[in-house]
């Protein structure tokens, strides 16, 4: 876009009026200024997390208007990972309480990974049956699945909690994972869209060669849909990792606590007076890190998939 503008500006001088060209470029300068301001507003809180996480809690009040870390230290990160002694922690404004950060991190990884693997795999299977197989009642069942999109999550959450409790799965990772591991209507819908678009000829050819449905699914369909499957997996991982409400209800003690819930607990556990902001920010940064890494690795894919979900 910028290049086309550069090439048209000189010709505008020779042709009719130079004024409109100049006006547009001033408009563009203003527009860019707004755009940059928006990006700054978007990025600044992330920088502020880092800045605070590298500060000494005791020095924060004196340096509240400084944009650099107040009295630089790795202390907050050490506290998060349990590497600081009680005395060290308290010297920098931490509580010195023991935090099972590694446990929460492990739980989050297990929960998000199992949910993603199960949900994507089972939804792909169902989507294949809805898109490529012919059986009576297919559209009816698919329509029924889609109606689940209409029910607000809170409505099913309360009865699901009762069910998980009756199954004796409260305070277990299984209890957190179970309602999400089989399917979501969105995942099935998403994959079905792609399977519908795959050419039938390839599939027919495989059938003539004597391949069964399972073989066709794994050897033909799944490899051809590798890109959308990756996209779906990323989106599922992000939402599973970030989920707060459900794990908050199911896991009330340490063993099954995931990172998001643990962050909420750190926040409410802060004793009277000022919370340990550097420790809290270091913990949020570590909790957000996997998403930031996913973003660096798959940013373009995520951006494109969100645009796709809008057009669908």
């Amino acid at each position, binding site marked *: 876009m910028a290049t086309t503008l550069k090439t048209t500006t000189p010709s505008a001088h020779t042709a009719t009026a130079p004024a409109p060209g100049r006006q547009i470029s001033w408009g563009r300068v203003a527009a860019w200024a707004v755009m940059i301001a928006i990006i700054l507003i978007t990025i600044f809180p992330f920088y502020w997390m880092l800045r605070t996480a590298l500060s000494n809690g005791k020095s924060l009040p004196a340096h509240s208007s400084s944009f650099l870390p107040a009295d630089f230290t790795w202390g907050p990160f050490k506290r998060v990972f349990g590497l600081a002694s009680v005395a060290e922690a308290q010297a920098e404004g931490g509580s010195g309480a023991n935090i099972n950060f590694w446990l929460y991190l492990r739980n989050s990884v297990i929960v998000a990974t199992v949910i993603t693997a199960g949900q994507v795999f089972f939804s792909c299977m169902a989507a294949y*049956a809805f898109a490529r197989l012919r059986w009576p009642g297919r559209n009816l069942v698919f329509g029924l699945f889609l109606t689940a999109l209409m029910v607000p999550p809170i409505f099913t959450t309360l009865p699901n909690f009762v069910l998980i409790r009756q199954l004796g799965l409260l305070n277990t990772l299984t209890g957190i994972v179970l309602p999400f591991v089989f399917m979501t209507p969105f995942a099935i819908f998403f994959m079905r869209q792609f399977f519908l678009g795959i050419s039938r000829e390839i599939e027919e050819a495989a*059938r003539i060669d004597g391949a069964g449905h399972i073989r066709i699914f794994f050897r033909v369909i799944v490899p051809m849909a590798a890109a959308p499957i990756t996209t779906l997996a990323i989106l599922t991982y992000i939402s599973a990792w970030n989920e707060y409400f459900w794990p908050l209800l199911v896991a009330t003690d340490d063993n099954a606590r995931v990172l998001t819930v643990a962050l909420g607990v750190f926040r409410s556990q802060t004793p009277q007076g000022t919370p340990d902001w550097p420790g809290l920010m270091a913990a949020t940064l570590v909790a957000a890190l996997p998403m930031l890494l996913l973003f660096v690795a798959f940013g373009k894919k995520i951006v494109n998939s969100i645009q796709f979900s809008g057009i669908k």
Partner: protein
Amino acid sequence: MQATTQAETLQRAGPAKTGRARRLARGDVIPALLFILPATIGFLVFYLWPTVRGFYLSLTDYSLFGLPKFVGLKNFQQLVHDKVLINALWVTLEYVVINIGVQTVVALGIAVLMHRLTESTTIRGAVLLPYLVANVVVALVWLWMLDSQLGIVNVILGWFGISPEAWFGNSALVIPTVALVNVWKHMGYTALLIFAGLQTIPKTVYEAAAVDGSSEWRTFWRITIPLLRPVLVLVLIMTVIGSFQVFDTVAVTSKGGPGNASRVIQYYIYEQAFSRSHFGYASALSVVLFVILAVVAIIQMRVLRGGESDLD
């Protein structure tokens, strides 16, 4: 949309009537059942059954201990007179109006800027960044940045002579604050959805407007907005329903306070169910939320149907 219908008609009109296809179709039933089995289990156990059970629980007195006792419409008679509920509905509505109003305008602005200025995926990605981190992380960062004593926002406002505010502790400010924090989180995502809609508007329309000497401003109001209407309605449907179910940010920052100033409907349901063990009453409240969301969705669908694109 178009791609789906094309694929579907292709599939229906395809080789369905040939002998081989019919033979294959008959063989499809058993594999189809196998392929949808896991998803169907998930659907029945964690979507359909809890939906039915949710309605039943709303007619019971249930404290999670012992069995639910059927009480007919008692919960609903009670909630009509529940002042906290009425307040919660108003507070939620205030949140939705501010959140969706600001978010849609800002996102539209960002989308148009991106569309006119740059094709850069990096910029689109940067704007999307807050959407990828957990609500809890977003809530904690802003809780810190908006801290009444040490928060950087008050420090910066102080440079302009504005006195510090307790953003989450002031009953007049807490809902707008939570609403704007969530605008920060979702504006990039919403902007990308609108951006995708902008890309479907043919360049020729803009070229024709430019030839006719239309200003950017006029083109925006006379061309972009009318052609974007269906996408905007779709975006509103997606965001409004989610906005009514705000929970995480409130749970981490203000916990419904001060007083009842930020006790939004989902937080009230959560408290009734899990802090006060009024599970039956909480279920009745979630029926109310369900009905409200259904009405909102139906109204929006009506508007959508009346809002077919002027392009077609």
